[in-house]
């Protein structure tokens, strides 16, 4: 029994030791990270007192390599003046917003950083962002008006990049079918009916027949004429174009239940269901261009300008002969602007310095890699209005021919057709878009109509728009 007790005590103490070590190490880790956090602030304070430089951190999504590229840019800024020292923190895209949320809870946010489009108004409404209206005061060139995120009338962020929605097309397919290319000039934009008519000529079944011909086999289509991206946020374009919309212009009311909005969505669905010119897509995955233009199965497809640099440039090198055009329209000519935001967090002690850095960093020279590859479009107006700058931007092998891109993208982006996507001024767009995507699931396959689906769920959609509160 004595031995038993001793053994027991020994084991118990061993267990305790293990337990203590376990706890100790986890505590150590916590204090480590915590002290890391305080280190940056304390060292920034000490360094500012020593060298009189204010240290600010800028967070971005991307890999460690992308982070070091941006740090190299920041180092240029750091060397260019003696008041501000910028440190870049890169966080992988998948965990970026989660990490920022955690940091916000702990009061450990960076001074400034990127923020996902649909998070800006939410963060702003929770008081997490600074007003940046004053950022471009007295500057020679401002960002395009459609690129300002606005909450309660105040500018709370500018987009880090510009993107608009376009119509891409496969020139070889058009040449083969003897159909005129879609117009790259806004004044000549196709109406929806012209667009559908062209798409019919470009849709071919295995016997070479088109949708309005006798004996056409909708089950044996080998080439589709058109694909209109039906991710929920992009559908807003068509509701606006048809005189409806997702929301009222100030973002307060939901307009998706209006006939014009419903009709627009049904027209997009009918491209597959009735016109037989589009492949089926249920609007859930963000790979539209890969599935259509790059796969070589569809003649025309709508999607964002970023595709020029993320996928079409490679396809072009491999022989894809594609062009860009303005979107067709129903009643009004509309395309959407978007772009992830650069924000100044309200937890920062140095908002002025943070804005100065952002303003410097957002000048196009510093993001030249992304811009010249075609992934980002510049945000500052002068790149759209000064031809020398436009040529510098567009005349490179990553882009479609200059005249075409200049007209269908550069001019289009600063035209009256370009409107900010709703997350520039509305909260809870993720809730709304997720629900809309789910509501429309059976509309694309024709099991129900847009009218039925939306009317039945209108209350839920309205609730989603207010964050279900």
């Amino acid at each position, binding site marked *: 029994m004595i031995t038993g007790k001793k053994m027991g005590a020994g084991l118990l103490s061993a267990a305790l030791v293990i337990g203590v070590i376990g706890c100790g190490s986890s505590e150590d880790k916590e204090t480590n990270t915590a002290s890391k956090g305080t280190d940056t602030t304390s060292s920034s304070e000490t360094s500012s007192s020593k060298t009189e430089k204010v240290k600010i951190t800028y967070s971005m999504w991307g890999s460690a390599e992308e982070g070091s590229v941006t740090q190299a840019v920041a180092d240029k800024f750091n060397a260019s003046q003696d008041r501000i020292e910028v440190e870049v923190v890169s966080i992988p895209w998948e965990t970026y917003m989660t990490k920022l949320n955690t940091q916000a809870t702990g009061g450990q946010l960076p001074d400034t950083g990127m923020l996902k489009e649909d998070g800006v108004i*939410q963060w702003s409404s929770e008081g997490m962002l600074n007003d940046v209206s004053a950022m471009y005061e007295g500057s020679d060139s401002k960002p395009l008006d459609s690129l300002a995120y606005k909450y309660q009338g105040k500018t709370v962020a500018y987009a880090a990049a510009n993107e608009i929605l376009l119509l891409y097309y496969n020139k070889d397919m058009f040449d083969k079918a003897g159909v005129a290319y879609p117009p790259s000039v806004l004044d000549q934009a196709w109406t929806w009916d012209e667009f559908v008519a062209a798409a019919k000529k470009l849709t071919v079944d295995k016997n070479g027949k088109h949708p309005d011909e006798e004996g056409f086999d909708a*089950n044996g*289509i080998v080439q589709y004429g058109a694909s209109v991206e039906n991710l929920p946020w992009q559908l807003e374009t068509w509701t606006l174009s048809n005189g409806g919309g997702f929301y009222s212009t100030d973002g307060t009311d939901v307009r998706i239940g209006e006939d014009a909005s419903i009709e627009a969505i049904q027209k997009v669905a009918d491209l597959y269901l009735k016109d037989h010119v589009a492949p089926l897509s*249920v609007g*859930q995955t963000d790979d539209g261009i890969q599935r259509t233009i790059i796969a070589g199965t569809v003649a025309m497809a709508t999607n964002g300008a970023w595709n020029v640099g993320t996928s079409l440039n490679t396809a072009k090198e491999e022989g894809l002969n594609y062009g860009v055009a303005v979107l067709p329209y129903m009643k009004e000519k509309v395309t959407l602007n978007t772009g992830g935001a650069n924000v100044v967090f309200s937890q920062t002690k140095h908002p002025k310095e943070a804005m100065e850095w952002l303003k410097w960093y957002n000048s196009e020279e510093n993001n030249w890699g992304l811009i010249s590859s075609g992934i980002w479009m510049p945000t500052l107006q002068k790149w759209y209005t000064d031809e020398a700058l436009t040529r510098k931007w567009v005349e490179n092998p990553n882009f479609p021919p200059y005249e075409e891109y200049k007209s269908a993208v550069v001019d289009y982006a600063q035209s009256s057709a370009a409107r900010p996507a709703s997350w520039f001024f509305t909260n809870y767009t993720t809730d709304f878009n997720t629900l809309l995507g789910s509501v429309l*699931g059976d509309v694309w*396959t024709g*099991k129900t109509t847009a009218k039925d689906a939306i009317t039945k769920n209108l209350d839920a959609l309205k609730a989603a728009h207010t964050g279900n509160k």
Partner: protein
Amino acid sequence: METIHKPLKRRSRYNSSEARVAYICLIPAFLGLFFLTYAPLLGVLGISLTNWTGLKSPQFIGFDNYVQLFTTDPYIKDSIIATIYFAFLSVIGSMVYSFFIAMLLNRKIPARGLLRAIFYVPFVLPAAAIYVGWSWLYEANFGFFNFLLSQVGLNKVLFIADSSYVVPSLSLISVWLSGNLIVIFLAGLQNVPGVYHEAAEMDGAGAWKRFIHITLPSMSPIIFYNLLMSLIANLQVVTPALALTNGGPGNSSRFLTYLMYDQAFVNYKLGYACATTFVIFAILAAFTAVLFKTSSRWIYNEGGDDK
């Protein structure tokens, strides 16, 4: 009396010290369970009673999240149905499929080792590759299955693009992936005593009778284990929704775990997501409890009366 009493006492002492050692040895495991499982579970329960979004400090709102979940939430009902439907198809499908394959692989057939490897391989393939591959097979417009259908003159099937076919389609992948069950069944089958079969064969029992009266009862503990594991895994399904369908079309593949992920890490409604987590936990617990309750009726235990 003394003489009898003494050894008894010693025996009980021995027993109690043995118990003590056992308890002490269990401490590390208990600590792990407590801090890694039960404490977080309590934490989730606590957070589920708040409106925490991760940005502001949480406010206690009682059972509002649960009330909202069961009154106004547009997804939860479809989500529960989709999850149970998927788990039902996948569990039944993979149990029957893997038992059948294990029986085949247990016979003396040529290239048995190679075949065993072939049926196990899907289980160890990286999930991303698997789902990209299946998405090509299932694609509604130009997918391989639709190509085959068109070759034999049949109409297209939309598979994962159609809300009626998406869950069966995803279940099929899950069944195909059940190589781990095959391995466990195979190990069990190899432990079914050959003498029983020989004896039954002498008594004139045919293959079917021997399967029903010998193989199945002998395998019942293994079947129970696989059933339980498969049920829990399939009720927690999330990968196909994340990799292939994003919950669609409609809500037809918005499985509970996917719904929870969406609430927590897309919409950052952490309190609300924790409430959903507890609903998932309750559903899992209910199914597991039913399985355990009914198990004593059909599990054949060869030795020992401890349960």
